[in-house]
């Protein structure tokens, strides 16, 4: 905060009289006076509305009316930008530059797999399930300076983004959360406080299955062997060498993946997490076990 300007201002304050209740005042023109229309000596006769007609009687035609011509705004055909807006899915844009910044500032821990929960727990990204947001879209902005090695799980990612992450030896997975699971994922603490069992994540809807089972998109439903091929293919396309794992620990971290039905790493669907007593309650009834199994 203490820049040259601050120092200058404080120096100026030194030479001024002591600030007290009697000499403090607001910035000039900070309060806007509302214009009052009164029937006084100036505004008595026509009250600023002129004589006779549409102006005086507030019967002006609608905006855009061109006197019985077809108005301009009706001559142009409609362009349905917002058609089916209630069915569309929205993804919060998050760039690689932002991710790099979070890592540098210590807001994200690269020693652990990063998923939507860890992104939302930074409090710098908000995913609002009630606004039909289905997660985050990882953008390629900042791909050329991205240098973090991480295991990240997002909802959408472009080819260049995937290349930027895999060039540094990282792993990326795209994954779908249904709105009910997303509600739990975006604010885990709030969800656990409810005392409700962790939901079993649904599979993606019909129109999303193709995306999430494609190895090129690193979909979570794709065949792992095809993903390995796709990694090599992408490395050849962009001309970089794939990283070797440095140690077992790192390898284990980078290869950690969630089950398609699992929404929290290390917690299975059907479990109830009690944060107050620090206990996990697991279902025993075979009916429940069968219901929550993957």
């Amino acid at each position, binding site marked *: *905060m*203490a*820049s040259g*300007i*601050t*120092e200058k*201002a*404080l*120096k100026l*304050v*030194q030479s*001024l009289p*002591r*600030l*007290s*209740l009697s000499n*403090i*005042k*607001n*910035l000039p023109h*900070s309060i806007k006076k509302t214009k009052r229309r009164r029937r006084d000596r100036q505004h008595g006769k026509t009250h600023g509305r002129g004589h006779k007609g549409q102006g005086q009687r507030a019967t002006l035609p609608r905006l855009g009316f061109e006197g019985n011509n077809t108005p301009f705004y009706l001559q142009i055909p409609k362009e349905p930008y917002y058609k089916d807006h209630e069915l569309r899915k929205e993804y919060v844009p998050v760039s690689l530059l932002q991710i790099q910044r979070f890592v540098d500032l210590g807001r994200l821990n690269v020693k652990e797999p990063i998923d939507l929960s860890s992104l939302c727990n*930074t*409090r*710098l990204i908000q995913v609002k399930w009630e606004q039909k947001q289905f997660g985050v879209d990882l953008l390629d902005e900042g791909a050329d300076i991205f240098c973090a090695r991480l295991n990240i799980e997002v909802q959408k990612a472009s080819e260049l983004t995937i290349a930027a992450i895999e060039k540094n030896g990282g792993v990326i997975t795209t994954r779908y959360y249904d709105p009910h699971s997303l509600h739990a994922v975006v604010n885990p603490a709030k969800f656990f406080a409810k005392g409700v069992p962790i939901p079993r994540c649904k599979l993606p809807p019909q129109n999303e299955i193709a995306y999430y089972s494609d190895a090129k998109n690193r979909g979570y439903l794709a065949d792992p062997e095809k993903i390995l091929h796709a990694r090599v293919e992408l490395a050849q396309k962009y001309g970089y060498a794939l990283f070797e794992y440095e140690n077992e620990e790192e390898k284990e971290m980078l290869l950690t993946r969630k089950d398609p039905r699992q929404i929290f790493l290390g917690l299975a669907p059907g479990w109830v997490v009690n944060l107050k007593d620090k206990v996990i309650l697991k279902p025993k009834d075979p009916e429940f076990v069968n219901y929550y199994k993957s």
Partner: protein
Amino acid sequence: MLKRAFCILSISKNSFAKGSFGNDFSIIHFKSLSTTCRCFQELTQSSVDTLDIDGSKHLPKQRSLPIITSRKLEYVSQYSQPKQAWLESLETVDENKIGLIDLHPDVFGAFPRIDLIHQNIQWQKLYKKISYETLETRAEKRGGGRKPWPQKGMGRARHGSIRSPLWKGGGKAFGPRGPQSYFYMLSNNLRVAGLCSTLSIKFAQNNLHIVDSLEIPSDDPEYMEDLIDTRFWGFSVLFVDDTDMMPRNISLAVQDLPSFNLMPTYGLNVYSMLKHETLVLTLAAVEKLEEKLLYQLHRTERQAKFRLYQ
């Protein structure tokens, strides 16, 4: 060795006096001083011990001076320097400086936003205000139900009630309808910025003093008056400590002096700081204030929105 240390201290003290009162304020002086002083303190402590062992106690007993309070400042930006202030003591009437401390630049050297201070003052004045002003409407006025004269045929203006707002003694149209509350909540960020700005201005204008504690030798009000007169602390002084159990002597001394007041840290506010000419903080109060304000400045969690009825 001791003599040499004394020399270093006297030289650096001179440079200090220049630095604090003249315009050529330089931080390099202070830094060098703090290191030399720290050396000196160690030396004096060791020498006093040896003297005690020797048994030569003819020297007057002195506090191991100066006290350099090294404080760990959190969240200091690499582009800003910590502010430095004298640590004073209330144990004597005359001004006695017993050390130097670092102050956080974001709290005591923030940009002086006078508009935010004004907003804080307005808020503090208004949130507790209830206007009892009220005027009767034509319905509340006594009488006026009867038409004063017929509509037509009298050659007079048409009127339906003698309590119409047009009439003398009639009701008031759109008058004040009290009791009306002026309560509103100033946003958390503005309150924090207001406190930081006020503390910075108080510090920049040399109206902020930091003392080791509020202990004074006597409970005589004259002692307090003399102290404030000799130190030119002005007509009104606000003493702030981190606890609300104030020392006995200062409580009794200040009891009958309305312009000198004691306040715990949790009660410190912009209005009181500007109402008093001088602000005196104890070292513990400084610690607590910095901790609380820095938490507010650097927290990542959003605070829940204030609701009056929750």
